[in-house]
């Protein structure tokens, strides 16, 4: 017997028009059900565990709206985004794409890098304008992720980073496939000297058979070398894993183990269940997806309970069903000592969560400063040893369920705090920006970038 959990709006996967949708619970799963009068009906699983889905609403933050809206009056969310006056949450992470070209050609690519018919490679002036959008629309601390395409193909990346810092952007992370920084340590040093704070590394597994499927070439040695180089230079790394049930869901435990062995250079593992936007082979079925609870269960099983599903909490900044996060101290034997647990219950001061999350992104994605002193005491089982270790040897394991044209819904988009910055001065939820129809049409990507691109 299906139970209706709520009504929302969504997109038709064919024509990308706004259509009504309902969320229903059935067989202890949550589905989004929607129908376009012209193109048919869809029912897609978005969650596993109905009571858990409902309980997470208790973790919702008191929302803090954006400082400014680029779109004054919304007529049809999510068609006229920018953000608009209906958007409920401010920006935590600003994504600025520096190119749509890439030095790889992966079978799966959310940005459809290479081969999309146009070349987007903004000038310094255009990039400055995008940073200005961030400074004008987002309260400090401002966090920017430089992305692509592959941002490290730009030789002027150090100057771009320097410019961002000078304009008042406090934290800069670079999203990379790690190819260049595995071999060009001088470039890496220049990025560090320019003021960049951390890397966001594509990292699909510790087995080249996985990379052959996801990236079309062996990459594990490249990743290891790049991490080693980051350790030499002193830049923190978050391993970003696209998780597919057909490719690497059964490797998540090994990836966490690898990450734990590589702290303090590796700060975290960020799992992203596969999302079908950009370039993907064919229309996905539920069996081709991983929900956040499924991922948490896999992590618990594969880490032998060292990291339990209950150790994951929503960050409460985006919608509570968008992400989950845990923080653990890595003990000397490589085991994890989780600090987060659902048993703590919902945060008592939810109004404070958004600020905390932004501060945390800024604070914990880089090396922690030494803040403690006091008489020394070296006993292994002491609180001091634990705390001293936690200063550097911690690991964040987190996940974000991006929405695609099948799973997306307005309830989540309007609470999104991860925004693409467009060349025309807008901020648009990352998932929405990248939503791609079955025919490869995008709702925002193409129309935002094409006027600033060269047709190929």
């Amino acid at each position, binding site marked *: 017997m299906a139970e209706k959990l709520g009504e929302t709006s969504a997109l038709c996967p064919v024509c990308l028009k706004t259509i009504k949708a309902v969320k229903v619970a059935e067989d202890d799963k949550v589905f989004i059900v929607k129908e376009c009068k012209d193109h048919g009906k869809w029912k897609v699983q978005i969650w596993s565990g109905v009571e858990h889905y409902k309980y997470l609403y208790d973790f919702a933050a008191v929302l803090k709206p954006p400082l400014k809206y680029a779109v004054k009056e919304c007529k049809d969310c999510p068609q006229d985004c920018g953000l608009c006056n209906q958007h409920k949450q401010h920006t935590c992470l600003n994504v600025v794409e520096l190119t749509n070209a890439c030095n790889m050609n992966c079978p799966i690519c959310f940005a459809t890098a290479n081969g999309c018919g146009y070349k987007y490679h903004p000038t310094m002036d255009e990039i400055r304008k995008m940073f200005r959008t961030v400074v004008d629309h987002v309260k400090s601390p401002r966090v920017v992720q430089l992305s692509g395409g592959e941002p490290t193909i730009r030789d002027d990346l150090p100057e771009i980073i320097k410019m961002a810092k000078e304009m008042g952007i406090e934290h800069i992370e670079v999203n990379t496939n790690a190819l260049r920084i595995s071999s060009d340590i001088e470039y890496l040093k220049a990025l560090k000297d320019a003021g960049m704070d951390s890397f966001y590394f594509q990292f699909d597994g510790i087995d080249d058979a996985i990379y052959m499927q996801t990236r079309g070439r062996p990459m594990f040695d490249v990743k290891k070398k790049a991490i080693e180089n980051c350790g030499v230079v002193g830049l923190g790394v978050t391993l970003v894993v696209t998780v597919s049930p057909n490719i690497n869901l059964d490797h998540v435990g090994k990836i966490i183990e690898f990450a734990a062995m590589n702290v303090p250079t590796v700060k975290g593992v960020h799992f992203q269940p596969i999302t079908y936007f950009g370039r993907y082979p064919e229309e996905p079925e539920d069996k081709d997806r991983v929900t956040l609870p499924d991922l948490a269960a896999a992590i618990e099983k594969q880490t032998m309970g060292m990291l339990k599903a209950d150790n994951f909490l929503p960050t409460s900044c985006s919608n509570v069903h968008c992400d989950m996060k845990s923080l653990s*101290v890595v003990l000397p034997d490589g085991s994890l000592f989780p600090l987060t*647990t659902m048993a*703590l219950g919902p*945060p008592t001061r939810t109004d404070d969560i958004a600020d905390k999350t932004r501060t945390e992104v800024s604070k914990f994605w880089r090396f922690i400063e030494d803040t*403690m002193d006091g008489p020394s005491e070296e006993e292994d*089982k002491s609180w001091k040893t634990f*705390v001293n270790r936690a200063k550097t040897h911690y690991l964040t394991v987190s996940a974000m369920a991006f929405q695609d044209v099948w799973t997306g819904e307005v309830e989540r988009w309007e609470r999104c705090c991860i925004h693409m910055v467009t060349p025309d001065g807008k901020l648009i939820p990352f998932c929405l920006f990248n939503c791609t129809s079955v025919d490869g049409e995008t709702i925002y990507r193409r129309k935002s970038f094409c006027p600033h691109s060269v047709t190929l």
Partner: protein
Amino acid sequence: MDFLISDEVKKTIESRALKVDDIKKIIDGAEASKDKITNGSKCLAKKQMGDVVVYADYSAEDGKIRINSGYAHKMKILDIVMDTADTEWTYVKNGAKVRKGHTNLSYLGATRSAPSLVDPKSGESWLEEYLAAKTIAVAEMLFSQKRA
């Protein structure tokens, strides 16, 4: 009982989310019950208040009580792990010499040790300010705030 307290100490206590009135109550209670340790020049008393153990560091001054500091920890004091050396402190309640030692402290399911002042005879332990306000405070923070 008349109390003396500097603005600086008052500010420190309040910055730790403690009330000066609670510190005074602890001192009143400790003076009445003798449940305190002293090193001859100052006294240290503690009291469980809700989920928190609160400490009052004070001394006598011209017939009044000078509050030197107040601090607290959320960790629960468990058993004494070891005692290693005598200190200048005495537990007034039973006259025992207080020793330097280590005590197990538990918080949110985790138990680890920390240096402490201990009286093996009564099983009582006291945490000094440097530890409660730094190491233990950071450990508590790691657990309780990282959930966001």
